[in-house]
């Protein structure tokens, strides 16, 4: 703790405050708000009821008005703090509201109705988490199914991506053949073609091979990534050829060289590509939306979209499920950020 304190109070100008200290603090705190603000807002809002979401001005924490059961009334009544004409403060339950006048009762003396101008009362509120935002989509809607589909797509696509891309990278980095550089150039050139351009032809192909409306139709078109091939190839170029020669002298077949020498040695690059692939496939929206039409095949991102109807957007569910979909990506970043930095620095990609 003392080291933390020492770190936090460390100042550039020795004992006094230098202007750079103040600037640094302001800058970093502003950075925290800019970076963390939206995420924190999302998480807090995901616990708000639809009414609290629609409220203006919005509150930071999810709030709910306190309710109480009063003798003689069937439904729970909302509690308000009221300034009485004699200047005292009293907590009353509201029975009904007529125009600017609220009819209220004292929960301890439920027989007597007190009429109060609505300007004289403020709701009694406390922090309350609307967990049903999470429970309802996960239990009653198909969100667990969507989650399973998303996990399946992400895991399978990542495994196949690593396998195929590393094979291509191995061939393009360790074998000399005519047109090698041309092939590499062609692969990298496809980086310049965005998905939206090839969406229609890709759809035709997927439809023609019978993969329409299947999870494999989501997985297979995405596994060959130029980024992955490029990243792995650049890394494999740094593996010395003498190792391959030594393995050849050691009776290793070309497949064994790939499987037992190249793959283990390319592990850092494979880790980077795995992270990228997980994030890409998890966050994919457009392509799954195009390919999948049966609801039970939806991935999380497509499933989220079902809450945005033409006339009514169920913001509380969207917010809650957005938090759910964020969790795996956040975990990936928390545990593997070391590799991500290394990967971005090493390949110049992001």
């Amino acid at each position, binding site marked *: 703790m003392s080291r933390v304190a020492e770190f936090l109070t460390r100042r550039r100008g020795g004992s006094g405050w230098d202007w750079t200290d103040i600037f640094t603090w302001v800058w970093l705190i502003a950075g925290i708000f800019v970076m963390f603000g939206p995420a924190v807002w999302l998480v807090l809002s995901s616990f708000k009821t639809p009414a609290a979401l629609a409220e203006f001005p919005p509150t930071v924490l999810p709030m709910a008005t306190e309710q109480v059961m009063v003798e003689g009334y069937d439904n729970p009544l909302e509690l308000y703090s009221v300034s009485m004409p004699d200047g005292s403060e009293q907590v009353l339950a509201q029975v009904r509201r007529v125009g600017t006048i609220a009819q209220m009762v004292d929960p301890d003396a439920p027989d007597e109705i007190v009429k109060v101008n609505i300007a004289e009362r403020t709701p009694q509120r406390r922090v309350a988490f609307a967990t049903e935002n999470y429970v309802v989509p996960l239990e009653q809607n198909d969100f667990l199914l969507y989650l399973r589909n998303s996990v399946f797509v992400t895991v399978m696509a990542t495994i196949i991506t690593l396998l195929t891309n590393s094979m291509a990278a191995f061939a393009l980095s360790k074998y000399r053949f005519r047109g090698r550089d041309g092939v590499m150039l062609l692969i990298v050139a496809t980086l310049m073609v965005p998905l939206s351009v090839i969406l229609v032809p890709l759809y035709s192909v997927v439809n023609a091979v019978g993969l329409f409306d299947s999870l494999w139709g989501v997985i297979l078109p995405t596994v060959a990534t130029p980024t992955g091939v490029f990243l792995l190839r650049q890394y494999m170029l740094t593996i010395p050829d003498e190792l391959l020669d030594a393995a050849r*002298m050691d009776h290793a077949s070309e497949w064994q060289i790939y499987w037992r020498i190249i793959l283990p040695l390319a592990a850092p690059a494979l880790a980077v590509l795995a992270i990228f692939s997980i994030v890409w496939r998890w966050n994919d929206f457009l392509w799954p939306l195009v390919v999948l039409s049966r609801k039970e095949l939806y991935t999380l991102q497509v499933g989220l979209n079902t809450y945005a109807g033409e006339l009514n957007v169920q913001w509380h569910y969207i917010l809650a499920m957005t938090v759910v979909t964020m969790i795996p990506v956040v975990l990936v970043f928390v545990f593997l950020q070391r590799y991500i930095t290394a990967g971005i620095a090493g390949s110049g990609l992001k």
Partner: protein
Amino acid sequence: MGQITLSDIQRAYGNVKVLHDINLDIADGEFVVLVGPSGCGKSTLLRLLSGLDKPTAGRIEIDGKDVTQVSAADRGLAMVFQSYALYPHMSVRQNLAFGLENIQMPKAEIAERITEAARMLEITDYLDRRPGQLSGGQKQRVAIGRAVVRNPTAFLLDEPLSNLDAELRISTRAEISALHDRLKTTMIYVTHDQVEAMTLADRIVVMRAGRIEQVGRPLDLYNTPANLFVAGFIGAPRMNLLPVKIAEAGPQSVRVEGAGGLSIMVAADGSALQPGTDATLGIRPHDIRTGTGGDGSFTATVDLMEALGPETVAHATTDDGQKILAVLNGQDTTKAGDGISFAFDAGRTHLFDAEGQRLPPPRT
């Protein structure tokens, strides 16, 4: 058995020929060192032998069988690489076992061979470490161990000592020599260091620009270099090469004259030479002494004296501008700038004709 024959080996990369008609016979159990300056094709030749690269033309035979088109794995050879090429993600034990597992050798036999090789090379204590945790010398032993467990017909070693520091290089050199004595397996060793070549080899193959310049026992190469290149390459410090002119040429002896009144009779067959043509006289620095008595002598000015203790290396310039190196016994007190007289014997000189070839010995 490990008898290897190379016939008319050529290798070209595109239009660039790096090996021209290499012919070489290597006897079983022989320690052959390929030596030459960098780029002379010695490593390429070793790769052709190993099978990692194929010759453009020519034949390679091992024990009488043509293996020119046989793959590297099936030639029964083992190679030690300059960078050791140990698999960094495997332990030392796995490194040694990799090649044996690939030929489906029984596990018990693999373990036995590893134990034996580890004991011989004294690497038993770190069999479970990764190469990254080993020092350079230890890595070197593991690399040799990986070759030894294969029980090969011949070892190919590609500059195995070049990544070690000077002290370790000398001790490892002695160990390789001892290993060869024990295993009695053919070894083909590539180096650019002529000291390694001289100390290790049964026979040295001196190469330059894709051609073999001379093949012979180390002392034969030192005593009778076949041409100017070998004369300059073998022996440290380098042989002094003085430009001379043929004065008289006969089948028994040749008299040459050089600058500064140098005139000397060398026993050689000069019957093919014309008087007046250019020639080169070679004198090893160790064959020069101070003083005036001798078959030849000259005076010079000392540029630098390197006192090594038991001997002193004198860098001097003769009166007509010729640089001379001399290794003087003991500790000499002459200082830079002083004049000095050198003498040498005709019997210790080497005479090369205008093409740089050594003159044949006198006719009998």
